[in-house]
């Protein structure tokens, strides 16, 4: 009896401390964790598992047959081509724009920042339409392009342009954040010691921002390979020629070829998982570097900063 009332007392004291303190009671914590976990489970984990289950639903052989279909292979090739052109273009732009925004003060900087974010806010469909208006047969440059037998809309250049538009801010956003955080002291030191502008950029600036850069490139690549709306408007949906992987998924789905659609979708889901893995590794790397830098007190300019976690307008 006595021990029981003792433990009761202790428990009540603990409860009071919990109540007065800054922690929720354990059961509330577990309830909240449970609800959050349920949400993530239903909205993120189930859809992911479903992709692979549906893709393999008719057996590995049917899956493989769907993947090595000529039109699907052509879509894989086109998707890789588009990403191979788009990502370097936007990476170079990201580095250049970050240099301007992070290293200099000028009027209209906030405006430039907002304009770079603009494609995030514009519907991809509207983005695609802009290029149709500019380069399509009814567009401004259409007649001229036709005379010179240059095809942009319903061909690779149009798909690349639409993808460049949609993925425009990804690298710039990440690199601007990292470059701004690293300041200009080191570059000034390098220049004072006689390095040329190029040398300073390659030896000082680039190593400082390489993780943020990589992070932006990974996100940019994922979006470039997965973009649907903008590409759908400019592609023309010619099987085997202008269908990217996401468009191929759509086409198979509309042909009631569910297994085929999910088989192609599973390729893109693997891409998403690889992206997520790379992104997480990069974040952990940043975090460790950040902690190490905080332990060893360094010069303020040398502190690496963590990248902004999302490619979203801020």
């Amino acid at each position, binding site marked *: 009896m006595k021990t029981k009332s003792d433990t009761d007392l202790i428990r009540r004291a603990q409860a009071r401390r919990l*109540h*007065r*303190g*800054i922690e929720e009671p354990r059961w509330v914590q577990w309830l*909240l964790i449970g609800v*959050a*976990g349920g*949400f*993530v489970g239903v909205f*993120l*984990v*189930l*859809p*992911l598992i*479903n992709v692979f289950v549906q893709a393999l639903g008719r057996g590995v052989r049917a899956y493989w047959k769907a993947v090595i279909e000529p039109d699907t292979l052509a879509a894989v090739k086109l998707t890789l081509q588009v990403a191979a052109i788009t990502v370097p273009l936007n990476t170079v*732009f990201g580095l*250049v*724009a970050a240099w*301007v925004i992070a*290293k*200099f003060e000028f009027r209209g900087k906030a405006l430039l920042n*907002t*304009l770079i974010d*603009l494609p995030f*806010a*514009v*519907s991809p469909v*509207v983005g695609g*339409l*802009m290029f*149709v*208006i500019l380069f399509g047969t009814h567009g*401004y440059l259409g007649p001229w392009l036709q005379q010179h037998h240059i095809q942009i809309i319903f061909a690779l250049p149009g798909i690349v342009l639409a993808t*460049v*538009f949609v993925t*425009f801010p990804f690298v710039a956003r990440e690199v601007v954040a990292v470059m701004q955080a690293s300041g200009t002291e080191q570059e000034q030191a390098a220049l004072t010691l006689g390095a040329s*502008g190029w040398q300073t*950029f390659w030896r000082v600036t680039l190593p400082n921002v390489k993780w943020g850069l990589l992070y932006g490139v990974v996100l940019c690549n*994922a979006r470039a390979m*997965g*973009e*649907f*709306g903008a590409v*759908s*408007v400019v592609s023309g949906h010619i099987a085997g020629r202008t269908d990217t992987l*996401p468009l191929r*998924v*759509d086409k198979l789905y509309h042909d009631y070829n569910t297994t085929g659609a*999910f088989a192609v*979708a599973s390729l*893109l889901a693997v891409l*998403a998982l690889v*992206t*997520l893995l790379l*992104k997480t590794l990069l974040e952990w790397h940043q975090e460790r570097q950040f902690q190490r830098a905080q332990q060893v007190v360094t010069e303020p300019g040398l502190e690496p900063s963590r990248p902004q*976690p*999302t490619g*979203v*307008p*801020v």
Partner: protein
Amino acid sequence: MAAKRFRLPGFGLTMGYTLCYLSAVVLIPMAALVLRVLEQVSWWDFWRLATAERALAAYKLSFGAAAVAALINALFGTLLAWVLVRYRFPGKRLMDALVDFPFALPTAVAGLTLANLFAAEGWLGRFLVPLGIQGAYTPLGVVIALTFVGMPFVVRTLQPVLESMERDVEEAAATLGAGRFRTFCCILAPTLLPTVLMGFAQAFARAVGEYGSVIFIAGNKPFESEIAPLLVVMRLEEYDYAGAMTLAVVLLVFSFVLLISIHLLSRWASHFQPAA
């Protein structure tokens, strides 16, 4: 200061390149769209096309579903950010990494698998459809797809703010006798609100423009489950350029308004955040 400012080389070159590339990819195409509308669509036609009954139904669905989805994301996003920052539990890192999944997964795949899950014979539809909850091929499907697409925004804007928040304010509230719930309502919620709002606005902006995931799950019936970006595509496929461009300009104007609100919100929110 002025002398120091321009000591780094390459301002002219990099500024020039930035402006040229920005113009080529974003500004000129956008101007082309607006100019074309001004040239080819009279004001009266613009008004007629922009406010046609089918267009109004599409805006209503797009904005309505986006608002509901963003609200769901604001609630669950706040919960997720809170749980991920404040509590320790097994699988936390995995959950944290998974939050970004909607950014990494192509939207067409998201739409495909969600439609399959919520269809009558799908894993979730099997239980929900007998209860009268039709997730696939209805306006509810639009909300589901947009919730998926917008999920990371609130979590990722809120997380760093929660992480850097000093806990002594909460301790002070506790010493003064406030319960945990009261502390949350009176102290934490007002501080976090601007950031949550910013995440909400971002998720909303993304959801209004979203196309890929929605068309797989919505059913796309005119007047009922047809979103505004889809109507743009439909008009374009009918070679009705005036109709497509008019709707596109309406969406574009709305994007501008949202982008400016997000910008203002982020400035407001930064007052509530400790200096980085």
